[in-house]
C-alpha cells in the first residue's frame, strides 16, 4: 500500500494521506507548512499493535541545481546526525532520517499538546506571570544547552508558536533546528520570524545572544499579549510592560528589557545568566515547578495503637490510588510509583513531598536510579527517565504494551521488560534502544545483571540468560509463567514460577540445580542473605531455604497470599502479604518479631535504611515505620 512519490519535478508536492515512506511511516495528515519545510503526522508501522505517531518533516528545497542539491542533502544528513545526538527533555527526539530521490525527511517525536501562542489566545486576561517566567527559565535552560553544544547550535526562531506544553505538562521546543539546518549559509538572508528576531539577524548574523533577544521578545509577547509581528521591529519602548500589565514585578520587567537590548553586548552574557536573573526576579524557582502540597497525615491511631509490639509509625503519605510497587531509597529521597500514575519523591526522613512526576498509567514496579536519573516503567507503555533532583522528564521510551516490570540499570543501559513480550535494552543517557529480546509473552520479571550476563523471566515460562549484546546464552523452561525476578548467589540464579516451584539454576549453563516446591504459585521474587533464600508463595507462606542444600530452614504462615518480595535487612526479614500485614521475622529462625496492619493488600517489597522501613499498600498509603523496635 505504498503510494508512489512524485517525481523530482513535483518535489514540493504535498504528501497525500496513506503515503507510506520507507515502508514504515504512513502519512496521516499534514500538520503545517512553512517556508522551507512541511510537517506531517504519520504512523510508525513498525508498531502494528499500537498507534505510535511520529512527526515527519520534509525539507522543501526549490533549487534544481544539481551541485546545490547535493550540498543541501549532505548538509541535511550532517545536521540530522547532529540533532540525533541532542538529549534534553525539552528537545524532541529524532528517530530517523532519509532521502527519497530529491526529497529529504526527518522523523521525530510527535508531540501532542498546545503551543504557547494557542495557550495565550485562550487566556484573554493574560497568562499568570509566574507561569510565563517559569517557562522562560526552562527555555533559558534549553538555549544554554544548545549554545554549549559542540559545535554551538543557534535556535534562531524562538517564539511562542515554537514552544509547546505537551500532554504531560512538559515544555518542549519544536521546529527545532530546521531554520539552521536548511538555511543557505550566506549573509543577507533573514532567517527567523520578523518581530521576534534581533537586529543582527536581519543582517544574516545570528549568535547565542540572538536567541536571548528572541526569548525576551517571546516573554514580552506572553506577558503583554501584544504580538510583535504586528508591530514595527524594535519598538518595544512604545509598549512598556508596566503600562500593559501593571502586576508584573519590576525585576521581571528589567530582565525582559535587558534581553531586548538593541546592542547584543548590552544583553545578558548568555542564556544561563538570563535564566538566573529570571529565577531571582520572582525569587522562587521552586514554586514554579512545584506540584500540589503533600497530604501528610498524622499517624492513624485506631488500627495501630492496639497492636502490642508494633513499630512506631514515623510518617505516612497518602496517594490518590493504590501503591502496589516497591519504594526505592536514593540519597535522602524515597521514590515510589503509584496507581494514581505518579512517581513520588518524598523526603525519606519526614515524608515531605519533594516532587512528583506524572505518567499516564499506573506504576506497578520499582523505580531505579542511576547517575542522578530515576527510571520507572508505567502502564502507559513507556519507560520514563526523570531527573532525580527536579522530577523533570529527561526522556521517555516507548514499548508496545504496558510496562509492569521494573527497570534495571547496569553498564550505562536500562533493561526493562514489557507486556509487549520483549526485554528492552535502552541507553540510559539517551533513551535510545540498543536491542530487544522477544520472548513471545509479557515480561514482568525484572532483569538481573551479573557480570556480563542478563537474567530475566517471561510469562512464557522461559528464563533467559543473555549477553550484554542481547544474544541468548541459555534458556530455561519452567512449566508456567515466571513473573518472579531472578536473584543470584554463588553461581546460582534463583526465581519462582507460577508452577509453584522455586528454581535454582546454574548461572553459566542454565542447568537446574535444585527445585523447591510450595503449595501454590510463586510470584514473589527471592531475597538472599547469609546462605538462605527467602520468598513468598500464594499458598500464604513465607519460606526460607538453605541455598546449598535446598532444605527448608523455616516457613511462616500468613493469612493470605504472599505475592510481595521479602526484604532482608540486618538479620530480619520484612515481607508484606495480601492479608494487609507487613511481617518482620528473624532470618535465622523465622520467628515473628512484629507485624503491622495496613488498610489493604501489600504486594510490593519494602525498602529500609538505618532507621526506617518503608512500604506501600493498596490502601493508597506509603508507610514509614521505625526499624528499631
Amino acid at each position, binding site marked *: 500500500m505504498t503510494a508512489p512519490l512524485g517525481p523530482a519535478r513535483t518535489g514540493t508536492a504535498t504528501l497525500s494521506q496513506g503515503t507510506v515512506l520507507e515502508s514504515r511511516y504512513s502519512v496521516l495528515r499534514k500538520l503545517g507548512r512553512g517556508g522551507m519545510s512541511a510537517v506531517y503526522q504519520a504512523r510508525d508501522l513498525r508498531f502494528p499493535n499500537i498507534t505510535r505517531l511520529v512527526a515527519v518533516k520534509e525539507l522543501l528545497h526549490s533549487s534544481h541545481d544539481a551541485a546545490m542539491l547535493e550540498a543541501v542533502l549532505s548538509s541535511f544528513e550532517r545536521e540530522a546526525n547532529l540533532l540525533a545526538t541532542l538529549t534534553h527533555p525539552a528537545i524532541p527526539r529524532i528517530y530517523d532520517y532519509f532521502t527519497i530521490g530529491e526529497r529529504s525527511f526527518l522523523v521525530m517525536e510527535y508531540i501532542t499538546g498546545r503551543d504557547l501562542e494557542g495557550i495565550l489566545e485562550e487566556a484573554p486576561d493574560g497568562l499568570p506571570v509566574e507561569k510565563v517566567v517559569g517557562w522562560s527559565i526552562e527555555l533559558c535552560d534549553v538555549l544554554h544547552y544548545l549554545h554549549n553544544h559542540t559545535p554551538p547550535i543557534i535556535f534562531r526562531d524562538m517564539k511562542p508558536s515554537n514552544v509547546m506544553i505537551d500532554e504531560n505538562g512538559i515544555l518542549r521546543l519544536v521546529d527545532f533546528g530546521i531554520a539552521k539546518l536548511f538555511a543557505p549559509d550566506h549573509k543577507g538572508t533573514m532567517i527567523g520570524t520578523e518581530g521576534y528576531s534581533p537586529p543582527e539577524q536581519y543582517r544574516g548574523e545570528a549568535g547565542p545572544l540572538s536567541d536571548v533577544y528572541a526569548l525576551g521578545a517571546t516573554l514580552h509577547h506572553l506577558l503583554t499579549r501584544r504580538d510583535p509581528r504586528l508591530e514595527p521591529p524594535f519598538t518595544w519602548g512604545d509598549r512598556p510592560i508596566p503600562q500593559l500589565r501593571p502586576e508584573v514585578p519590576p525585576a521581571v520587567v528589567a530582565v525582559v528589557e535587558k534581553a531586548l537590548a538593541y546592542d547584543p553586548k548590552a544583553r545578558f552574557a548568555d542564556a544561563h545568566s538570563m535564566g538566573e536573573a529570571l529565577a531571582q526576579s520572582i525569587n522562587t524557582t521552586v514554586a514554579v515547578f512545584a506540584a500540589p502540597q503533600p497530604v501528610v497525615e498524622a499517624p492513624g491511631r485506631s488500627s495501630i495503637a492496639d497492636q502490642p509490639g508494633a513499630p512506631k509509625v514515623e510518617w505516612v503519605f497518602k496517594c490518590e490510588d493504590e501503591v502496589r510497587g516497591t519504594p526505592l531509597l536514593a540519597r535522602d529521597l524515597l521514590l515510589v510509583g503509584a496507581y494514581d500514575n505518579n512517581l513520588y519523591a518524598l523526603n525519606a526522613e519526614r515524608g515531605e513531598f519533594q516532587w512528583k512526576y506524572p505518567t499516564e498509567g499506573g506504576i506497578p514496579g520499582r523505580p531505579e536510579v542511576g547517575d542522578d536519573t530515576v527510571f520507572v516503567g508505567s502502564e502507559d507503555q513507556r519507560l520514563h527517565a526523570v531527573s532525580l533532583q527536579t522530577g523533570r522528564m529527561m526522556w521517555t521510551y516507548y514499548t508496545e504494551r504496558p510496562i509492569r516490570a521494573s527497570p534495571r540499570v547496569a553498564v550505562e543501559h536500562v533493561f526493562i521488560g514489557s507486556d509487549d513480550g520483549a526485554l528492552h535494552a535502552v541507553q540510559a543517557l539517551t533513551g535510545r534502544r540498543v*536491542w530487544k*529480546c522477544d520472548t513471545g509473552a509479557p515480561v514482568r520479571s525484572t532483569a538481573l545483571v551479573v557480570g556480563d550476563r542478563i537474567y530475566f523471566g517471561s510469562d512464557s515460562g522461559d528464563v533467559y540468560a543473555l*549477553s550484554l549484546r*542481547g544474544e541468548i546464552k541459555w534458556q530455561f523452561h519452567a512449566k508456567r509463567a515466571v513473573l518472579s525476578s531472578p536473584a543470584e548467589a*554463588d553461581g546460582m540464579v534463583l526465581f519462582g514460577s507460577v508452577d509453584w516451584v522455586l528454581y535454582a539454576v546454574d548461572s553459566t549453563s542454565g542447568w537446574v540445580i535444585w527445585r523447591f516446591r510450595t503449595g501454590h504459585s510463586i510470584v514473589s521474587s527471592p531475597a538472599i542473605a547469609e546462605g538462605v533464600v527467602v520468598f513468598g508463595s500464594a499458598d500464604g507462606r513465607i519460606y526460607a531455604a538453605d541455598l*546449598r542444600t535446598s532444605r527448608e530452614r523455616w516457613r511462616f504462615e500468613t493469612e493470605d497470599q504472599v505475592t510481595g518480595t521479602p526484604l532482608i535487612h540486618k538479620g530480619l526479614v520484612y515481607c508484606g502479604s495480601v492479608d494487609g500485614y507487613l511481617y518482620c521475622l528473624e532470618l535465622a529462625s523465622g520467628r515473628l518479631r512484629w507485624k503491622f496492619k495496613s488498610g489493604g493488600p501489600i504486594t510490593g517489597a519494602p525498602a529500609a535504611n538505618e532507621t526506617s522501613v518503608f512500604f506501600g499498600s493498596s490502601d493508597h498509603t506509603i508507610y514509614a515505620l521505625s526499624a528499631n523496635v
Partner: protein
Amino acid sequence: MSPDTPPPSADAPGSEKTAALSSGPPIFHVGIGHDVGRVRTANEDSLIALTGLQQADSTLPYFGLFIVADGMGGHELGERASRLAAQTFARHVLTHFTTLWLGGSGGEEQLSIQEILEGAMIAANQSVLRHFPGSGTTLTAALMFSSQLFLAHVGDSRAYMVGSEIKQVTRDHSLVQRLIDIGQITPDEATRFAQRNVLLRAIGQTDELEPEFLTLPWEPGARLMLCSDGLWGPVDDARIQETMANSDTPQAACDALVQLANAAGGPDNISVICVELAGLR
C-alpha cells in the same frame, strides 16, 4: 531477537567461556591414592574418577565425577558393596547427566542436579540392599561442571576444599558428629571417642535412605579432595592441608597423604582422590 539487534560477532557459541580460560580447554588433573593400610588385610574402599571434555557445540566444556565409597561387612562383602554402590551411582549419573551434557533431551521436565545425584544414591542403595544384604558402604560423590561443585554423600567419607586453608565441605553422618552437633562432646574429644566408626546413615542399611545434597561454587586455585576415614582419622586437617600445599601435582599429594596415614599407623584402608581444574579462571 528483533531485527534491529546488532549482529552478534562471529564468535562461536560458548566462545566467551573459552576466552576466559588461560589457554585451551580446562583440564582436570586427578590423583588417586588407594592403599590397604597397615592393619587390614583387604581393601574395602572403591574409587571412581571420570572426566569429560568436549570442544563441541556446548557451553559446558567439561565435567568431572569423583566417587569414594568405604564398604563394611567382612567376608569381601564390604568390598563388593562399595564397588557396587560406586558403579551404580556412576552409571546413574552417566545415564541422566551425561546424556544431557552431550546434547540429549531431558524429557518433559529436566531433572535437577539434585534429583540426579539423589536418584543415583537411591539406585546405589537399592542395588546394595538387593545384592549384598547385611553389608553397607559410605558414598561421597562430587560432580563438577560449570564452576560449580555438587556433592552427594552418605556416611563419613569426606570432601574437602583445599587451598591456602582446608575446608571440610561434607558433614559426617556419624554418631560422633551428631554428638558434636548437640554439644555432648568437643571435636577434640571426638578424636579419642571409642565409637568413632558408628555411622548414622549408610548405603545398604534401609530403604529409607536420606542422602545429603550440597552445591557450592568451585574456588579457582583450590583442590578438591575426597577421602575415606582411613586418611582423615589418623591425619589431622592441618597436616593434610600442609601436605597438599607442598605437593606439586594431585598425584604427588595423594601419594604423600597415603604415606602420612601409614606413618600414623595405617589403621584402616586409605582412599583419596585429589582434583585440580587447570585453566579455569
